[in-house]
């Protein structure tokens, strides 16, 4: 029995590949297993190779590894592309109708599991697209999995389509399950060790986690132009807008989006935008305006491979320096970078409070990997109490941009609020918001805005430290690269190598003193990032003077495997 199994399904776009991953993940999550599902697909609607990988384990884990125990091939191409990745004695589920397979053609010994996917679908009068359901049934038989849980997942998935559709899907899934039980009954090499259900777990991607976090933080307005990889947030908001009393508007472009969101925020409601790098490039002018008029705004930026249109459906951490420096002129901002969906939820709630508290734009800097992977998160993590801090709201009739406030944060009025008249002016302005070009007011007003950097210090968070305090090597990373590094550290620990990790999720204003304390005494620093230039390393150098010579950098759009990190760092070991 295995404690961790990695399962992969591949086929043409339009085969229901993405849904399969979510359904399998849910099935095992409901039985108490820990799961993570990642996807890979090209930027087109039909055709092209789609792929979902699901790792299922009895113990909690932080990233996908290089294992591949079961491959489900919904077409021949899937076998050709992925046969190199298979573990020794892996199982390959395929449909003989797609062409015969021979174990001799694989680089390592494998066991072929021929399942007549098409014939079984036809037998139960299903559509060809339902072959994935047969394949999941077959997979469950091989995993020793909980078929009853899969039935509940199907029932929930097709609730709106009615009992007949549910029954047909369950029958088709069972046909796959029974076929494997009857034909390969003794095959138990990939059976998972039993898990015990502890608590309810959610299966969410980071876009959905951000949506839930935003809703809980009291989001009332979002204007989001479609763009990979944040489209799941649009779906979440559009589907739930009426029930949550939220206005979601699809703007004509990202320029409109950020200006709409600023308008709503000026009227006093919590508002946000979401986009990727290219869309954010269009928003930069609006960002600068938000900085000038001191309006709270939350920006979810899901990074993908750039520059330009780049590789739209692949992941990168290429926009760290962009978000810190975006915008003409000098003004404060906050940048947060969650490591996974659970983190994305929590940091989104924080982002709204920070935006209101400091009256600044706050970034939630995510990426394709966390936005489109399905993570399992304890339900309790997202259902606990949420503290809402709307910051300083005008009550005493002082001018909107009162220069006498020591921390630079002057109470704001919501447009339309009685007694709060002012102008939210894109020009440099005086305390009421009237245009000014007087040098002394300009300098005072700029200083007022920049003073917030000082005020923010009480909220700046120390980077998180994981691992062995006696480490010989200290990894340094940020955002979603945390998971692969944590898994790499486990592998290194298993061979007696002591490492630790300093992880940044609070990026900016940069935690200078905290970083000095953590990194100055550390021995061998190794920067790990999903980009080509080491943007965090540059930021650390800028603020602390600390130079990280060893950098593990990767910008092929594919997430780090822990094993890759181990190989590369082993070469650096003295």
């Amino acid at each position: 029995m295995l404690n961790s199994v990695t399962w992969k399904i591949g086929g043409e776009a339009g085969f229901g590949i993405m849904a399969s991953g979510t359904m399998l993940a849910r099935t095992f999550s409901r039985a108490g297993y820990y799961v993570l599902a990642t996807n890979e697909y090209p930027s087109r609607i039909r055709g092209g190779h789609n792929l979902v990988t699901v790792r299922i384990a009895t113990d909690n884990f932080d990233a996908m590894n290089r294992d591949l125990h079961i491959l489900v091939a919904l077409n021949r191409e899937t076998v050709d592309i992925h046969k190199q990745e298979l573990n020794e004695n892996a199982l390959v589920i395929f449909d003989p109708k797609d062409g015969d397979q021979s174990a001799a053609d694989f680089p390592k010994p494998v066991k072929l599991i021929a399942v007549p996917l098409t014939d079984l679908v036809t037998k139960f009068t299903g559509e060809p697209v339902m072959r994935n359901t047969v394949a999941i049934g077959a997979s469950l038989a091989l995993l020793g999995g909980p078929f009853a849980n899969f039935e509940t997942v199907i029932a929930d998935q097709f609730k709106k389509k009615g009992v007949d559709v549910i029954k047909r899907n369950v029958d088709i899934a069972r046909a796959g399950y029974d076929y494997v039980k009857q034909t390969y009954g003794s095959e138990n090499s990939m059976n998972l060790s039993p898990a015990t259900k502890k608590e309810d777990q959610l299966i969410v991607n980071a876009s959905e986690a951000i949506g839930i976090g935003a809703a809980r933080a009291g989001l009332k307005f979002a204007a989001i132009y479609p763009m990979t990889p944040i489209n799941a947030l649009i779906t979440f908001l559009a589907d739930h807008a009426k029930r949550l009393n939220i206005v979601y508007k699809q703007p004509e472009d990202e320029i409109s989006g950020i200006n709409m969101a600023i308008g709503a925020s000026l009227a006093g409601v919590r508002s946000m935008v979401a986009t990727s790098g290219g869309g954010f490039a269009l928003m930069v002018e609006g960002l600068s305006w938000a900085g000038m008029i001191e309006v709270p705004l939350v920006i979810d930026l899901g990074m993908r491979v750039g520059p330009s249109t780049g590789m739209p459906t692949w992941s990168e951490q290429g926009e760290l320096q962009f978000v810190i420096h975006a915008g003409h002129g000098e003004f404060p901002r906050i940048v947060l970078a969650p490591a996974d969906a659970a983190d994305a939820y929590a940091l989104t709630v924080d982002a709204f409070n920070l935006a209101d508290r400091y009256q600044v734009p706050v970034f939630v800097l995510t990426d394709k990997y966390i936005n489109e992977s399905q993570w399992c998160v304890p339900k309790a993590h997202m259902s606990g109490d949420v503290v809402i801090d709307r910051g300083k709201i005008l009550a005493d009739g002082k001018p909107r941009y009162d220069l006498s406030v020591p921390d630079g944060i002057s109470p704001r009025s919501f447009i339309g609020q009685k007694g709060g008249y002012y102008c939210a002016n894109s020009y440099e302005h005086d305390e009421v918001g009237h245009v000014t070009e007087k040098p002394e007011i300009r300098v005072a007003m700029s200083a007022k805005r920049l003073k917030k950097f000082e005020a923010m210090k009480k909220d700046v968070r120390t980077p998180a430290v994981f691992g062995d305090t006696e480490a010989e090597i200290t990894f340094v990373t940020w955002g979603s690269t945390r998971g692969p590094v944590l898994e790499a550290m486990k592998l290194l620990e298993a061979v007696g190598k002591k490492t630790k990790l300093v992880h940044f999720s609070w990026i900016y204003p940069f935690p200078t003193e905290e970083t000095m304390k953590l990194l100055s005494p550390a021995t061998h620093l190794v920067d790990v990032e999903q980009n080509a230039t080491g943007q965090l390393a540059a930021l650390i150098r800028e603020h602390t003077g600390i130079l990280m010579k060893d950098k593990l950098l990767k910008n092929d759009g594919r997430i780090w495997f822990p094993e890759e990190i181990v190989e590369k760092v082993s070469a650096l070991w003295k």
Partner: protein
Amino acid sequence: MEIKPTWCPGCGNFGIWLSLKNALTQLNIGTDDGVVVYGVGCHGNMDDWMKMYGVAALHGRTLPVAQGLKLANRALPVIVVSGDGDCLGEGGNHFIHAAKRNPDITVLIHDNQVYGLTTGQASPTAEAGFKTKSTPEGVFDEPVNPLTLAITAGATFVARGFAGDAPGLTALIKAAVEHKGFAVIDILQPCVTFDKVHTYQWYRERIYTIETPDNKMKALEKAMEWGNKIPVGIFYKEDKPTSEDHEAVITAENPPIQELLSEFI
């Protein structure tokens, strides 16, 4: 502190400013009761001389900001003061999309065919042949027609006024603000400094007031009339649900969290 307008003496903006203040007074919209969103251009300097909630937006971005304000607080009267360059050049795409959504917003386009603040370049509404600093050989392009553009894009109140006729313009602005939907007034505005052709006199010799046509095709036909005779008045009016009517009413209620999360188990 005394703040005096910085417009050139005789600028058409004075007539628009006066008419807007008259209309707001007649509608009983005071300092805290509504908001004016200004673009960037000569028109935008009006924000300093209006004691009313103001948003001096970025160049071209008035309409998205105005829609955000309105969707967040639909009880708030929202008026946009924009220019021909602001609204139809930099903000042209926003104009089309705002019109098709029909938010309950009034837009005043200060239409003087030039970019005055940057000292006299051609604007999107500049007539073909018009010589400016950026078009020494005259404008080659066709001018944008704000009226036909607004009507075809879906605006539900479309009018043209004249900055030199404060009583007429006051009445138009009042009717536009009272209209529930996207109301556009294209305002013919002489630029006394950079346009020696389209003077007050030039307009006075040509403008005449129309009866509102009873359908869209006739409205378009009227809206395309330009030359020796220039029609002013309300060209098109239609009652239709607004952008806000389709959306949730924002309340302070907490989201039903258990129900929401159960979808993701």
